[in-house]
């Protein structure tokens, strides 16, 4: 046993010795290895971008929604945009015993209206720009359901007139939109009374205004699109759901707000992964072939050196490991080359995507966590190792006598 350990240690020492020499001569081969280094760098960059994007999106959507809150829409509506509800329905819901009441004995309910709006604004040069944005009509009760809502600048809009407050993510993206500026929504002029924040949730990508004004400006009569309800703690949601599903006056879809946004997050991440990962996979295959080629070329150009090592008495296994080590080195350099620029440039960057369901923009941050970077680096290293295995085996079984011939 001791002998076995000693022998293994000796092998490790051999491999380390050769690896150190490889390390010394690596800079000479860096140019020759640059193709595989660069291709691995590209793969790492793509993978990390996809990971960081989905992570950022999930974070944003996960922050959205309260635990005790139900969101109610028309049955069959996938998103708020497709839903239509009538005041009579809202009344039935609001009067249910399980719905919380505030100090004035009024049900805690938020009726909301959601419009995929075209916003026109002027830049400093006086040119008109059009932006597609989510415009949400809200009622007094709405603020209760947004505990992280804060005015970052200015004041809340006044009901009954054309005033909006804009989410911080939009304000960051369009610096022209400040408190006091004027924008055009649905053909009418609106005054920006303030800018709000909501703990980086998806709402920061929305414009909020009085629901009554939006109903009239967008010809929605007195219909609304969704209702949020605060429930008493002990509510049996399954029973409540059954009761409302069985009520002939109602035809609604009921779910927890958290669940609703989580499922949206899922849809979006799935979409990005379905597009991103196949691309990354094909690139990874390419990078692996590049690494394979580079390593074969390296072995060909170093065959005399490898044969000399064997003649001196280095074992095939040690030589095999030293080649793998070099492949690993290439992958490591490539991986870092792909990851570090992203780290320095993109962390905290805001990206926007078209939400698959309501087609308005959603803004979120790239989340470049150490975990994601390690994941990407590990993936890069695996590409290198996979590309290095065959060449390493070839080096191990290289016919010494042929390689050492002087002619």
């Amino acid at each position: 046993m001791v002998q076995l350990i000693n022998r293994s240690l000796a092998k490790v020492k051999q491999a380390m010795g050769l690896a150190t020499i490889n390390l010394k001569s690596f800079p000479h081969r860096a140019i020759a290895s640059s193709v595989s280094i660069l291709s691995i760098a590209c793969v790492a960059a793509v993978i990390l971008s996809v990971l960081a994007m989905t992570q950022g999106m999930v974070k944003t959507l996960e922050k959205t929604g309260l635990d005790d809150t139900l969101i109610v829409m028309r049955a069959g509506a996938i998103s708020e945009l497709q839903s239509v509800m009538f005041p009579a329905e809202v009344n039935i819901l609001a009067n249910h015993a399980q719905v919380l009441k505030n100090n004035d004995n009024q049900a805690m309910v938020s009726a909301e209206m959601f419009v995929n709006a075209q916003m026109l604004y002027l830049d400093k040069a006086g040119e008109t720009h059009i932006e597609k944005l989510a415009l949400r009509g809200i009622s007094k009760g709405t603020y209760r359901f947004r505990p992280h809502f804060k005015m970052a600048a200015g004041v809340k809009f006044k009901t009954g007139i054309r005033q909006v407050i804009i989410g911080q993510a939009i304000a960051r993206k369009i610096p022209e939109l400040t408190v006091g500026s004027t924008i055009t929504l649905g053909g009418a002029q609106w005054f920006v009374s303030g800018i709000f924040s909501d703990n980086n949730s998806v709402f920061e990508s929305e414009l909020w205004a009085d629901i009554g004004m939006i109903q009239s400006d967008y010809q929605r009569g007195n219909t609304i699109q969704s209702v949020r309800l605060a429930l008493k703690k002990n509510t049996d949601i399954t029973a409540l759901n059954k009761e409302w599903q069985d009520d002939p006056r109602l035809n609604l879809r009921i779910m927890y707000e958290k669940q609703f946004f989580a499922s949206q997050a899922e849809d979006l991440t799935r979409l990005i992964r379905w597009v991103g990962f196949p691309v990354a996979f094909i690139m990874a295959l390419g990078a692996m072939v590049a690494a394979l080629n580079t390593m074969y070329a390296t072995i060909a150009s170093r065959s005399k050196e490898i044969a000399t090592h064997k003649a001196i008495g280095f074992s095939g296994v040690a030589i095999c490991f030293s080649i793998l080590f070099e492949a690993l080195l290439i992958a490591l350099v490539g991986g870092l080359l792909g990851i570090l620029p992203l780290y320095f440039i993109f962390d905290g960057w805001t990206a926007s995507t078209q939400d698959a369901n309501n087609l308005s923009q959603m803004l979120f941050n790239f989340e470049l966590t150490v975990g994601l970077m390690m994941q990407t680096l590990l993936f890069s290293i695996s590409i290198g190792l996979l590309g290095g295995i065959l060449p390493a085996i070839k080096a191990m079984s290289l016919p010494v006598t042929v390689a050492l011939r002087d002619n």
Partner: protein
Amino acid sequence: MQNNNQKKVAIELININKSYQKGSNKVVVHDNFNLSIAKGEFVALMGPSGLGKSTLLNLIGGLDLPTSGSVIIDNQRIDTLSEGKLSTWRAENIGFVFQSHHLLPVLTAQGNVELPLLLTALNSKQRKQHASLALRLVGMEERAKHLPKELSGGQEQRVAIARAIVSDPKIILCDEPTGNLDRKTADEILTLLTTLNKYFGKTIVMVTHDLRASEYASRVINLEKYIHDSKQNQLSAVEVNS
């Protein structure tokens, strides 16, 4: 007597057959070849190219295996050892010197000579000491810090010899060690080998085209003649027997 004789034998090639498959052709390089070299001999192996001289060195050093027959070094049969055992054995018992020095360009003379010591139990300080000693032996201690490209051909070959002897092997195998050198430098290298043979007791087998090798070696084998003569002997032995 018999026993005493066996102890003195360093290298023994017995009934060696070596052939290569070249496409569908079988190229026979050695056919029933026998050779015995005593400890402390300095053998110069001469003959035209393509005759199988390098093949013999590779067989002795365990870099190549015979198609049949046995290779016995120091009373140990090596052609049946596993690949891993063979490399360990080679590290301990054989030093190779080639026509091209095959030094690693990124390592200094010192670094190149230390390389085989990675295969020993020595620590890094001991490795340094051993390598310095080997460099001193070949007269290269002042060039220890130099890279191969900063050395002349003769100096490179000296470093290669230092590398071959640094782990103190009993046998040194040289394949045309002076093939790339001018007369004067070649003489210096041959003198160095003679020193290793005479004063350090190394058994040396050297393949060479150098006609003056006989002035240095203790035995010169003209391989063409050697093969011819041994064929004759075998034939007459067969005739006597029948």
